[in-house]
């Protein structure tokens, strides 16, 4: 404590916005554009940043992170592209089915957990499917600062190649698209071998692709600092469980389709968070007592922490067992 202690509110600062455009891009992906409701400019952001979109779905508040994919130099709009996930917990379905031009929504200030390494002599991007979105902003930023980049983009089919044509037309020599249905595969080993010293690699896509790029780069002698990835983990459904929160002095039930963090919020507990995707560390919570098994799904705690049973990241992780008491 120093001078004028103030209670910190959980999450990043918020911005009230109005949906200014809803643009279906293909069968699965739709772009949403937002203007600030107060008419002011948006804060500048760094490419790779995401925003957490607050959705008012009946009496339920959903909070989902999406990469900002608009040009960071354009402060008049923020844009995200959302892939419909029919098996998911409903956030993307809500966006696709309910959100219309003119709707009022709330975004958080940008948070960047996937930033460009500005020391890089060259940036090589590997995108899989909807993982293209942060690279849209990165490409815009690097084009303005004469950065050296190339993109390798794997999509299922030409019809589902979100932004593939647009990017190929704008940067024919830098963009390479690979279609699964034509049996095209990113020639990862060759690409990793041929890069100049000081190149950084970035990957965003399905877990398998991220692991593949990390493992191949490591096998080819790349330092781990030169390989960057981002994967948002959606909280997975799971069996309901009961948690005792000793600071708040309440016992709560975590439902099948909500995360532990969401359950705490529903019960009025102001728990800290930022990314809601297991990456930022903000929601880290101490375990006071546990009898059962943790289902750790975060990228924040190390293996030792996971094994210790002393910490949990409530935004993505769950618990199966008899008793769980948390210091919250």
């Amino acid at each position, binding site marked *: *404590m*120093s*001078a004028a*202690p103030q209670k910190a509110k959980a999450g990043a*600062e918020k911005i009230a916005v109005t949906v200014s455009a809803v643009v279906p891009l293909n069968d699965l992906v739709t772009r949403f554009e937002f203007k600030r409701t107060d008419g002011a400019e948006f804060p*500048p952001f760094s490419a790779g940043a995401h925003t957490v979109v607050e959705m008012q779905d009946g009496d339920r508040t959903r909070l989902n992170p999406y990469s900002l994919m608009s040009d960071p130099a354009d402060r008049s709009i923020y844009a995200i592209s959302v892939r419909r996930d029919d098996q998911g917990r409903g956030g993307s379905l809500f966006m696709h089915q309910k959100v219309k031009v003119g709707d009022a929504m709330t975004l958080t200030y940008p948070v960047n957990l996937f930033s460009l390494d*500005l*020391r890089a002599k060259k940036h090589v991007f590997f995108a899989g499917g909807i993982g293209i979105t942060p690279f849209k902003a990165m490409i815009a930023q690097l084009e303005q600062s004469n950065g050296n980049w190339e993109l390798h983009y794997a999509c299922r089919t030409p019809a589902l190649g979100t932004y593939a044509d647009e990017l190929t037309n704008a940067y024919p020599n830098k963009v390479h698209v690979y279609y699964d249905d034509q049996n095209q595969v990113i020639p990862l080993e060759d690409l990793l071998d041929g890069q100049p010293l000081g190149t950084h690699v970035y990957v965003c896509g399905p877990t398998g692709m991220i692991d593949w790029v990390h493992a191949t780069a490591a096998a080819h002698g790349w330092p*781990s600092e030169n390989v960057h990835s981002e994967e948002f983990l959606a909280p997975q459904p799971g069996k309901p469980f009961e948690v005792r929160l000793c600071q708040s002095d309440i016992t709560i039930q975590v439902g099948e389709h909500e995360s532990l963090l969401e359950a705490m919020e529903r019960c009025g507990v102001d728990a800290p968070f930022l990314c809601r995707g297991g990456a930022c560390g903000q929601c880290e919570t101490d375990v006071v007592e546990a009898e059962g098994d943790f289902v750790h799904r975060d990228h924040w705690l190390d293996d030792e922490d996971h094994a210790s049973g002393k910490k949990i990241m409530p935004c993505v992780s769950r618990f199966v067992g008899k008793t769980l008491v948390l210091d919250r």
Partner: protein
Amino acid sequence: MTIQFNNETFRDDYSFRNSDWAIKRFPFPFHEDSYMYSVNMEQHRGGPEGSVYEKRFDVDEHYLSEMQDRAIVLAEDPLRCQSLPHMTLAGWDTLELIMVSKSEDYPELFELHRDGNRWRWVNKPMKIDHTFTFLDETTLPCGPLEYITRQTQGDFAVLDQRDEMLWMDAGMVTTQADWSLDFDIGMNFFEWHAPVPLAHEMGIFKRALKFLLNVQQGAPARRLNWTMTVNPLLDTSPENYHKWGIQKTTLTPENIGAKQHLRVELQTFFRLPRSNALLFPIRCYLIAFQDIVTVPKWGRRLHRVVRDLPEELATYKGFIANRPVMLDYLSQYDDGLPTSPGVWPDLETEPPLAK
């Protein structure tokens, strides 16, 4: 209120003085009668009216003189301002943050007029009226970080954030408490903190780093740090230790009230939007012992803190040799009465010295 800028020096004849206004708003760093390192971070979103915490970048009566002192230091040693090549964008971020904040917080002193990337910056106290192109270095007389920090009180470390770590890759450092940018440049958070005693073992730096990596755009944070300085010197750098270190031996019971200064750093943390770097302004406030003891609560408390401070900290902060003479002086202002919690002077409610 309008600020009367002092004409004063932080070297040679040491004409630096605090007005009554500056004494009352001094950021006294002790909220209780003892002190130990802690992860003492809080949000930096305003504070009581008139306090140094109110504005994003506090401007006070020492502004013009501090800027003159910085210019002297830079003329002698240009390496006090450095920026590795990849930090230029963070320099522009810094310039933007300070220009926007100061023009909004002090409209009578600073103006910023923006037409796309064509910006006109008016700094009335320093008589600057300059039009330039944002993000185009050729339109400024020097790099963006140097340009704006020659016009802003306090030191600045600019930290690049990579691999879950902060790296000191740029800065403007002319008013520091015995550390060197030229030495620390390119180091990471644990490396540049290596000389600090006890805090590593207490786990403070590990937790502080986790916090800093998560400081977000639009949600700045702050903390206080403090040390002791003999004579109101802004530039207590290792580079010039031969000039100021020796002055520590000149303290006597007669001159200590005027010569011995408590040095407080208001440290703030801002996430920079375009570069994702972290800006760490370190604003130094000096106050003579004889001015502190005009606030009875602060006199009582300072005596107790200095008396009970662990030896490692007094050694690291460089006043272990002078602690006895400090305590002789300060004990005159400690009557043993209890003190109210918190840092504020509480002049109306705290009893006068009963001694």
